[in-house]
Every structure is written in structure tokens, then in C-alpha cells.
């Protein structure tokens, strides 16, 4: 594919608000996971929670969209100078030439979960203040962000579970290559809700402690929440910037099982191979792999197998979910930004909470952060339904 410039980005999750906070946490191998204290949830698990969302409100003119997911979207947009950068792009290209392609898995479902507790005891009706289109519907995130940023270009939400916000880079790249838009806001948001906490619990996939990716004693994931956004433009439009580049993207399906990855990591390997092909690179060109690494027994084993088959045991790799938790639909953008930070700061992240690497693992897994130049990074995101996406990022020049 034609490389694209990632000219601006913003990020917020349990590690803090803004790229600086996340980069510092990576340097210090800090985890933001804490014992679950969300809403009325009574589960023995750890979560990665963003503080202050209960008190936050969305901008008054978009008050109908007020919900935890859109509050976190707004928080993310207002960080790292992102809203200003998009306003400049809007002026440069025109509002109708900037697309909005975002991902989320559960959107504002928390609003509906709470509304189901307040149903009319006589009729069963939902409370009159409940707003479906602006909060619950999967599109509400892109609808809100598009209005918030005053954009009029093409828009939709990709909702493919935990690969969603990686895949949107592909949608944007295609739309820009086809000339439908000149720039795109990509990324997305997922927020804590009862559906995912109790759902992963029902699958016995949540850890009772902070999750420990690739650890011999790993016993499941920790659910987190977060937002991340990136502005994609064509290379060379802003030569004054030392832009980060989107070099390639690969997508695949496992065609195996709805909630268990292919045991040999077949779909994962296809996604990585396609991403490398799309970037015109060989495995040896990749300096660091940011793994999906959820800390479930099956994901980490399958991913290790596929990464080792492709990269051997020489390429450093790690999962950052011990720091952030699994941000589900927002995992892709969050880890793409962490990968960009690794390139910018010359620091390959370690694996917070991992104590002893599973001896069955074959790839070169980093527990401790490593100061080393990383020019090209591959980031993996895999989801339910066997949806896989790998993204290759690199420094310009």
C-alpha cells in the first residue's frame, strides 16, 4: 500500500491522559490495573479504569450523546492537541474531505444496561430519558466524533470486537487511495460495561489478579477502557513534520471458532504476513512486535506460535496489556500508539505483571523495557469471531 502519514495522535487509558503519561508508564513499566470497583460489579477481578468519567459530561450542544463512551471519546479528542490538528486539517482539505472511521465493540451499551434496571414496572418500557441512537447504537461513537469535530466526510464504525480500531486504518487507507477523502480521523473508544465484565467472566477468561501476559501462570485477562485517535494524511502534505508512517496492514479470519483462537495461530499468521506484504517488508525488517497478548492461556500460546513461525526467536516482542488491561475494541489504536511511542522514544515496552515467561513460549519476549532503536514495528490485534488485524508502523525518512 501507499504509506500514509500519521500526523497527530492522542491517547487516554488507565495509565493516564495523553501520550506523555503513556510513554512514561512504558518507560517505568507501570501498570494501571486495580481491583474492580466499577459500578455495582461484584466480580473478583482487576480492571483498567479511567478516572473521572462518572462526573464528566459531553459538550452541551451534543448533550443527547452523553454517555461513558462518548465522554471518553471527548476526553481523548481534547488531549495531545488532537482537536486543533483536526481543525487545521478541516481548513486545509474541507470538512467534507476528512473521513471518520472509528472502532468500538460495545459503544454506549452501559446506558442500556442501566436503563433496563429502570424499566416501567407496569409496561416494561424503557425510561423516557433513554436515547438509543446517540448512546447505544454502535455508530453513535463516529456520529458524536464527527459532529464534535465539525467534519462532513464519509464515516462509519467498524465493530469487529478486539480488532476494530486496528482495522479502521485499512478502511481509511482505502478511502484515501480511492480518492473519497484526503485525510481521516481513525481510532476509537471502548468503555467499561457489565456486558463485557460478566461476559468474559462467563467464559472464565478474566483473571482474579492483574493480567500476566505470556506468564507460565497466566490465568486470563483484565478488562480496561480507553480512547485513542490518529489523524491520517498523505505523505508529503506536511513535510515540516517528522511524521510517523502507516506502512502496511493485513486482515484475516480464523474460520475456526467464535471465541477461541485457531490453536496454530493460522489466522494470526495470515494477518501478519499480509501486513508485511502490504508494507513491502520482510520479517527481518521488523524491530519490535507489540503482541495482542491478552494473557489467556489460548491466545498467548497461539500467538507465540504464529509469531515464532514468522519472526523466529530474534525479534523482540511484548504485550502491554499487563499495563493497560485489554481495551477490547480500543486495544488496536492504543497499542498502535504505544508502538509509535516505542519508535519515537527508542524504547521497546516490557510486560508489567509478567513474572516468569511460560517455558513453552518460543518467541523473544521482553519482560523488561529495552532501550533500543526501533524503526519499524508490527502491532497485532485479534478478536472474537476470529477477526485478525496486524499493522506495520515506521519512522519517516
Amino acid at each position, binding site marked *: 500500500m501507499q504509506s500514509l502519514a500519521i500526523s497527530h495522535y492522542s491517547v487516554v487509558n488507565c495509565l493516564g491522559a495523553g501520550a506523555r503519561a503513556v510513554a512514561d508508564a512504558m518507560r517505568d513499566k507501570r501498570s494501571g490495573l486495580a481491583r474492580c470497583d466499577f459500578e455495582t460489579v461484584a466480580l473478583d477481578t482487576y480492571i483498567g479504569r479511567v478516572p473521572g468519567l462518572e462526573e464528566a459530561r459531553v459538550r452541551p450542544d451534543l448533550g443527547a450523546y452523553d454517555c461513558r463512551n462518548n465522554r471518553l471519546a471527548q476526553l481523548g479528542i481534547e488531549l495531545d492537541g488532537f482537536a486543533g490538528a483536526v481543525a487545521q486539517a478541516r481548513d486545509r482539505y474541507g470538512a467534507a474531505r476528512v473521513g471518520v472511521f472509528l472502532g468500538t465493540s460495545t459503544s454506549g451499551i452501559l446506558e442500556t444496561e442501566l436503563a433496563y434496571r429502570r424499566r416501567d414496572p407496569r409496561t416494561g418500557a424503557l425510561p423516557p430519558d433513554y436515547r438509543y441512537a446517540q448512546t447505544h447504537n454502535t455508530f453513535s461513537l463516529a456520529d458524536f466524533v464527527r459532529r464534535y469535530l465539525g467534519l462532513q466526510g464519509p464515516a462509519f464504525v467498524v465493530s469487529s470486537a478486539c480488532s476494530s480500531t486496528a482495522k479502521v486504518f485499512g478502511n481509511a*487507507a482505502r478511502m484515501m487511495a480511492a480518492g473519497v477523502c484526503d485525510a481521516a480521523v481513525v481510532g476509537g473508544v471502548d468503555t467499561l460495561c457489565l456486558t463485557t465484565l460478566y461476559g468474559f467472566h462467563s467464559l472464565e477468561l478474566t483473571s482474579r489478579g492483574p493480567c500476566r501476559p505470556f506468564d507460565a501462570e497466566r490465568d486470563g485477562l483484565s478488562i480496561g477502557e480507553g480512547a485513542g485517535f490518529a489523524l491520517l494524511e498523505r505523505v508529503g502534505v506536511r513535510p515540516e513534520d517528522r511524521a510517523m508512517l502507516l506502512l502496511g496492514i493485513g486482515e484475516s479470519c480464523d474460520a475456526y471458532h467464535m471465541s477461541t483462537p485457531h490453536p496454530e495461530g493460522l489466522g494470526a499468521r495470515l494477518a501478519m504476513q499480509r501486513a508485511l506484504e502490504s508494507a513491502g517488508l520482510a520479517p527481518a525488517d521488523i524491530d519490535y512486535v507489540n503482541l495482542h497478548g491478552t494473557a489467556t492461556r489460548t491466545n498467548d500460546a497461539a500467538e507465540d506460535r504464529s509469531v515464532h513461525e514468522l519472526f523466529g526467536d530474534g525479534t523482540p516482542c511484548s504485550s502491554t496489556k499487563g499495563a493497560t488491561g485489554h481495551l477490547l475494541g480500543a486495544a488496536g489504536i492504543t497499542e498502535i500508539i504505544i508502538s509509535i511511542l516505542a519508535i519515537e522514544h527508542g524504547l521497546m515496552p516490557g510486560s508489567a505483571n509478567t513474572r516468569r515467561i511460560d517455558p513453552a513460549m518460543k518467541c523473544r519476549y521482553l519482560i523488561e523495557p529495552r532501550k533500543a532503536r526501533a524503526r519499524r514495528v508490527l502491532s497485532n490485534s485479534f478478536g472474537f469471531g476470529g477477526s485478525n488485524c496486524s499493522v506495520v508502523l515506521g519512522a519517516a525518512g
Partner: protein
Amino acid sequence: MLAFVEGVGLVGPGLRGWQASRAIFAGKQGYSRAPTAVAASELLPAAERRRAGVPVKLALAAGQEALANAGRDAAATATVFASSSGDCDNLHYILEALATPERQISPTRFHNSVHNAVAGYWSIATQCRAASTSLCCHDGSFAAGLLEAASQVAVAGAPVALIAYDHPYPEPLNAVRPISGDFGLALVLAPQATDRAVATLDVAFVAQETDATRVADPGLEALRTGVPAARSLPLLSALARGFRGTVILEYVAGTHLRVAVTPCA
């Protein structure tokens, strides 16, 4: 963006397959609404067939018909899925369970709750490992899917199956988000003309508010406005009639898709 339509699949209220529905769109046969008749696909393994909800049946029925009409191998064809709301029955069960003190939800219900559940079942049924995406754009979901599918055809130069479906919510969500019936359609789009091609589509995004093209039959027009995926009906009607001209499709507020349709000789 140019794309050739190689195959169409359709299942909806009173619409039993594309071949059977063409006469209705062409005005040769009256439209009478009847509950959507859709069976589980034989392609799904028994366990998945048991777990699959209505949206999976709709998508598989429409998708398989379109690919058969196109003469394409489902295992080798990329897919774009578009839906406003996913599996609405399943979601309602989860929300009811979460409103009880026990909060017990089943693992199957949980994995069926993801918006891309249909894509997951599709890939298991067809053994397709090609790229697949699952989109949502509320009432504009079909247009979003068509825009994405057309961009894939234009940029990747490979065929893609666009599959759009919607399924009504039970109460109480039905009252706040009414979807009037079960509807699924599929279009196989290709970058080059083949002997299967029925029409060329030139798809353009336009950032202006305009009224969407309607369908002449009042019953079909009610279906168009009642089900997000049925916003595709003006395009399906054009394809069935061999219409040459422009179809306007509803998309995000303040925008629309303009589709120039040219029948293949």
C-alpha cells in the same frame, strides 16, 4: 468508484430470494408482505448451527445466493458486513439477565453479542480466511457497506461480497428503535466485467443532503424506510429492472451516496 455487480442475494418479508423477487421489482408481480422465511445454512457445523441467531441465517442465505449467482467461491472472497444493530434478540436476553441480581449470562450469548458475530459464523461456514470487516452506520449502514465494498474493489482490485442484514429488537428496545422486519441482501462486486456481470455501479460519496430514491410500490417503500438494510431496495429494484440511471442512497446525516447504474449488455 466502479464495480461490476456479478450476483445478488435477497431474503426479506415477502421476498424469497433474488430470482423470485425480480418479477416483483420489475412490476410483473405484486408485492405482498409476509414473514421472512429463512432456514439455517447447511454449511454451518451442527454446533454453530444450533447457536446461530436470525442475523446469521439472513446473512448466510443472502450471501450464499449472491455468490452462487456470481459463480464465485465463498472461501476465496473478501466480505463486508453491514448492520444497524446485530443480533437484537440475543442482546435483549443479555440486558435482561444483567438487570437481575444473579447477572448470569451464557458464554454463547456473550460471543454472539459482538457486532461481527455474523462474520465469524460466515467464515466458519465458508472456511474463508480472506479479509472481512463488520460495519455499522445506523440507518446508513447499507450505504456505508457499499462505500467500503466499492473502495475495496477499486483499491485492492479483487471481488468482494457485501452482505447487509437487520433483525428487529424485541420490546422494550423495539419501541425506541423500531425495525419492521428481517431483511438480508448481498451483492458480489468485482473490478472487471465477467460474463456474470449484470450491471456496473459507479459509487460516489456526496456531502449534501438530498432525498433518497424511493421504490414505487407502497409496500416495498414501507419496507425501505422500516429496515436499515432495506435502504438498498432502490438499488435492487434498479438492478432487477435493468434500469440505467442514478440511484440516491441514504447515508450519514447531511450526505448521500450517488450510484450510477449501467446494465451490462
